[in-house]
């Protein structure tokens, strides 16, 4: 039985896990943006704030994923919940770092003249700073996405969803002819998702960036 014949026999299962994997990563990414961008907005103005935000996020990044899952299980139990929280935490660093860079790259002359014509802080942030920083934020999201797609494979080890389950099935059927196929299906599924996510975020960047803010 070749790999393709095997895939034809269990493709529904593969599609199911791929879908789970994608949804898991999407949730982590969305939460990372929802937490990371406000965090950047709150901290980017002061050197101390920036250092605190970026150093905390990179501290999390230093913790190996298997250990972080292990630390979250006593708090959140097994399954999807620790996976989403872990992915959110790992997704933070690129988002926070890029959001800070993006906000700081806004030309001071632009913000000064926005204030000079009487824009208040909120309007300045929403209509000038964030739109200008948005492409940089999305570049961070793109990096996060690639990272999270890989890390999400480990969530299967804590009974979480996603393509990691195919890889671990391969491991548990070691010695059978299908073991390699299962592991390959898991890996290829993640690579396909990586390509799709990358293209989707590139498209999103085009669609949500105003012409003038595009680099």
């Amino acid at each position: 039985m070749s790999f393709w014949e095997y895939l034809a026999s269990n493709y529904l299962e593969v599609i199911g896990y791929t879908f789970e994997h994608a949804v898991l990563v999407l949730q982590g990414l969305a939460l990372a943006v929802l937490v990371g961008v406000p965090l950047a907005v709150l901290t980017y103005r002061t050197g101390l704030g920036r250092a605190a935000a970026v150093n905390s996020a990179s501290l999390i990044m230093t913790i190996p994923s298997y250990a972080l899952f292990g630390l979250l299980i006593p708090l959140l139990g097994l399954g999807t919940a620790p996976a989403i929280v872990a992915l959110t935490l790992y997704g933070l660093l690129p988002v926070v770092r890029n959001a800070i860079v993006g906000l700081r790259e806004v030309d001071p002359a632009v913000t000064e003249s926005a204030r000079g014509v009487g824009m208040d802080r909120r309007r300045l942030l929403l209509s000038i700073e964030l739109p200008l920083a948005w492409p940089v934020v999305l570049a961070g999201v793109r990096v996060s996405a690639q990272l999270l797609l890989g890390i999400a494979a480990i969530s299967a080890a804590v009974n979480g969803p996603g393509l990691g389950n195919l890889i671990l099935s391969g491991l548990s059927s070691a010695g059978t002819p299908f073991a390699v196929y299962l592991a390959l299906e898991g890996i290829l599924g993640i690579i396909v998702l990586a390509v799709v996510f990358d293209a989707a975020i590139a498209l999103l960047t085009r669609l949500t960036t105003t012409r003038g803010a595009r680099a």
Partner: protein
Amino acid sequence: MPENGRTDTGPTAEPMIRLEQLTKRYPGQDRPAVDRLDLDVPPGEIVVLLGPSGCGKTTTMKLINRLIEPTSGTILLDGEDVTRADPDALRRRIGYAIQQTGLFPHRSVADNVATVPRMLGWDRKRVAGRVDELLTLVGLDPDTYRGRLPRQLSGGQQQRVGVARALGADPEVMLMDEPFGAIDPLTRETLQNEFLRIQSELGKTIVFVTHDIDEAVKMGDRIAIFNAGSGIEQYDTPERILTEPATPFVSEFVGSGAAIKRLTLSRVGDVPVPDWPSIGQDTHRDERAAAVRAGAREFLPLLDADRRPLGWVPADASGDVLDRGLPIVTRIGPGDSLFAALDAMLAANSSAVVVVDDAGAYRGVLDLETILSTVHTDAGPAVPRPGTVATPGTV
């Protein structure tokens, strides 16, 4: 009047902007950035804040719309104390244009110009009309430029849009920080002239920051010269700054070209034109020859029946020259500057130029000696007096 922005030459009208004892002190610095500054800006005038870099002129300007909050002192806008007013509302009443333009790069030209009108809640139609009006005013065709992005414009066009945005909701007061600074000299000159034209129509009250004395003299109705310690050395009209520098600092800052700069400010109409006889066209050839030879002047202008100058008649004229005179290259009107008159003399290789009134009728002849003595009496020893004056002629 060093250290004092009140001026006795000012109009009696209430100032549009009045700064009283305005001070900005940054924590950790022993010297205040702006120290107990008093300044009155009369309505409808361009007041230039001039000084070396780091002299606090930009800080002073930003204190007016409170981009920098004053530590103490009072800002009065049209008689109203705005020192504690809502800064955002205040800034919407004050136009703001800066050297780096600060155009919003992600928004079209039209959206940039519409910023303040939209914040003030104007309806869409009124905003669109205002945008087109302003673009036309600054010399940009609305149909061509409305939809463009800032980076699709040249530097000069960006500055125009910056000025249009500052004029957005027709503010009475405008603050401009070297708005024509970052562009090439030719474009700058064009923009300065256009802006003066716009200002003559709109009559805004403008605070204009520059470090360029020539720009200050050209643009300003009044100039405040700041010293390095952010005090005002002199606050006066450009003429008086050039002719009567109040302090050594001012004369040094104004520089060695003061006399020449002054020539651009004095009008021919303000200078006494020396008595210079003329010859009527109805006179006979012999009478003309006699008149020229009898007079103290070596050339006399020949006038037609409406007293318009036709030509020069030199002392040694004969034949056709006595009939028509030598051609006159340039005529100077009362509104022209002495600089223009001098320029015309140099161009014609002559030491005198014919002055006519607005209708073209003969007013007299302005000679080099008169210009030199004007400069001499007003500006002291700035221009050395030459021993002899060349004769007019050799056209």
